[in-house]
């Protein structure tokens, strides 16, 4: 078994130091969550600044509209959804290859290739049962969303959910969980919850994964327009060095920045995304802009090649939650400035 050496072993929930007094916000959030009917506006507002780890699993379920705001209905919905998912497994997944269409076989094979390459340095994801669970989630999602099917990178998007729900169920941080000790009923629950949360997440961004990935094209274009407006010297330098925004931002869009940060920081960013009232893909572009411009001075001293190598492996391993807060605040500010005034983007 691989030693848990990699940064990915860092649990989602290792630290919790959001900008406003965390204890106070945690208490408020707890109170909101305990209401018979959760005030979603209040929940979004509090979650936007980061969710305390111990409250994250249920808060995400609510924010993603997987769980209803009405507490009375919650268990019923959860049972029904988990059953519904389980019922799809024999129908879609546990079938002989001869019963799959060519398209389905292609998706199946692609997933079989990608699952072992999902967070490969993390012990948890080297476990056979966990891999099988991930494969089922991805395949069933792909089959039920034929407009896009499974696209590489969606496997990454499932991992925060698996980690989060496993931690919740095992009541341990991820690095302390021995995968071989996960009870099968726990994994079944985690798998079903992951499926539904992934589905909800992707509902808003499906055109990122349909043919030619128009959603991503649009976001990359918007990012370049934003940077042109916000940081003209950086934009000019990128142009002058012939760097295409697709060269570095495709991955940011395709995997929602998961590959740009250690897991516990990506998760913090997702707190904010899921708390957004508008589609989170709007804010995401501004976060990417804030992220890129954060490195402006450094990038402007580099040439084409060094810039791309830098951006492919940005130095975020030592970042902390405060830095993420700053990044998100900057993105929020720019979004308020530019989002509803497209004219601001038109000329320099």
């Amino acid at each position, binding site marked *: 078994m*691989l030693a848990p050496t990699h940064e990915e072993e860092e649990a989602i929930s290792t630290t919790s130091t959001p900008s406003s007094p965390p204890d106070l916000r945690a208490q408020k959030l707890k109170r909101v969550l305990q209401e018979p009917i959760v005030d979603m506006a209040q929940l979004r507002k509090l979650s936007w600044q980061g969710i305390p780890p111990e409250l994250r699993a249920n808060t995400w379920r609510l924010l993603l509209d997987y769980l209803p705001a009405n507490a009375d209905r919650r268990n019923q919905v959860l049972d029904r959804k988990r059953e519904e998912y389980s019922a799809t497994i024999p129908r879609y997944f546990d079938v002989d290859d001869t019963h799959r269409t060519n398209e389905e076989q292609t998706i199946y*094979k*692609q997933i079989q*290739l*990608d699952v072992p*390459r*999902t*967070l*490969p*340095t993390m012990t948890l994801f080297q476990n056979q049962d966990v891999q099988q669970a991930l494969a089922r989630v991805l395949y069933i999602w792909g089959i039920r969303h034929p407009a*896009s099917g499974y*696209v*590489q*990178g969606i*496997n*990454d998007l499932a991992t925060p959910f698996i980690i989060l729900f496993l931690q919740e169920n095992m009541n341990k941080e991820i690095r302390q969980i021995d995968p071989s000790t996960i009870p099968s009923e726990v994994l079944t629950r985690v798998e079903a919850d992951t499926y539904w949360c992934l589905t909800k997440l992707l509902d808003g961004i499906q055109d990122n*994964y349909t*043919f*030619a*990935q*128009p959603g*991503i*094209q649009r976001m*990359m274009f918007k990012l370049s*327009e934003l940077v042109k407006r916000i940081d003209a010297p950086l934009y000019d330098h990128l*142009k*002058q*060095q*012939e760097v*295409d925004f*697709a*060269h*570095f931002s*495709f*991955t940011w869009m*395709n*995997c929602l920045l998961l*590959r740009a940060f250690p897991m516990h920081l990506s998760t913090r960013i997702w707190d904010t995304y899921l708390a957004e009232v508008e589609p989170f893909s709007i804010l995401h572009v501004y976060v990417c802009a804030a992220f890129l411009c954060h490195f402006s001075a450094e990038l402007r*001293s*580099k*040439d*084409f*090649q*060094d810039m*791309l*190598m830098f951006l*492919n492996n940005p130095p975020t391993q030592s970042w902390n939650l405060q830095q993420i807060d700053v990044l998100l605040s900057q993105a929020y500010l720019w979004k308020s400035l530019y989002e509803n005034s*497209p004219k601001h*983007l*038109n000329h320099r």
Partner: protein
Amino acid sequence: MSGDDASDSTSPPNRRATTHIKTHIMKSEDEYDYLFKVVLIGDSGVGKSNLLSRFTRNEFSLDSKSTIGVEFATRTVTCDGKIIKAQIWDTAGQEKYRAITSAYYRGAVGALLVYDITRPQTFEHLERWLQELLNHSDKNIIIVGNKSDIVNMRAVSTDQAKEFAERHNISFIETSALEATNVELAFTNILSNIHSTISANKGTTIDEDIPSADDNVGKSSKIVISDQPMMGAKQKDGCAC
């Protein structure tokens, strides 16, 4: 032709200074006669990323993530006394969804078309990949049958692949990125082919008016190869919504 770190030898006069270029594997990579962009293409999981890391860093990883977007690495080699800097690009194999195809191929002067000798389907798809390549211009191409170390699971015979390559008039080689077999040869083969093409064309297609859009490819050579990327990046400047 061989890997070479003696790239700080006397500079030809037409070499342009590039002050910031560094490299993982050798110093003085800012000195070169030609910069060639070469792309790795082929189905998902055939070993493109490991061929790249084997050639540029002499590394192989059994637990690498699938590639999303584009990545590249460089290495400098010498060929007929010329210093060639190879900029090797790598991308995801699940090609049909890629939104970045044009950014990927733009300026490329060669391609390694990779399949997995243990998975016949990856070989059958070569035809499709060739078509995609030709759509972006005809380049120097080499077909690479990777994973030759997995002897007991071979599903594509060497003869079969050789026949295919001959029919398309393309070079062919089998490699093992894991065992570092022929990887060097595969890359140096294509680089020297590109170099020969350029040398043969020299004098006939020189264009002194190449705009700076050309900065990243064939940097110091002034030689226009058929698909040089004069446009593309410049064209897209539309206005905002």
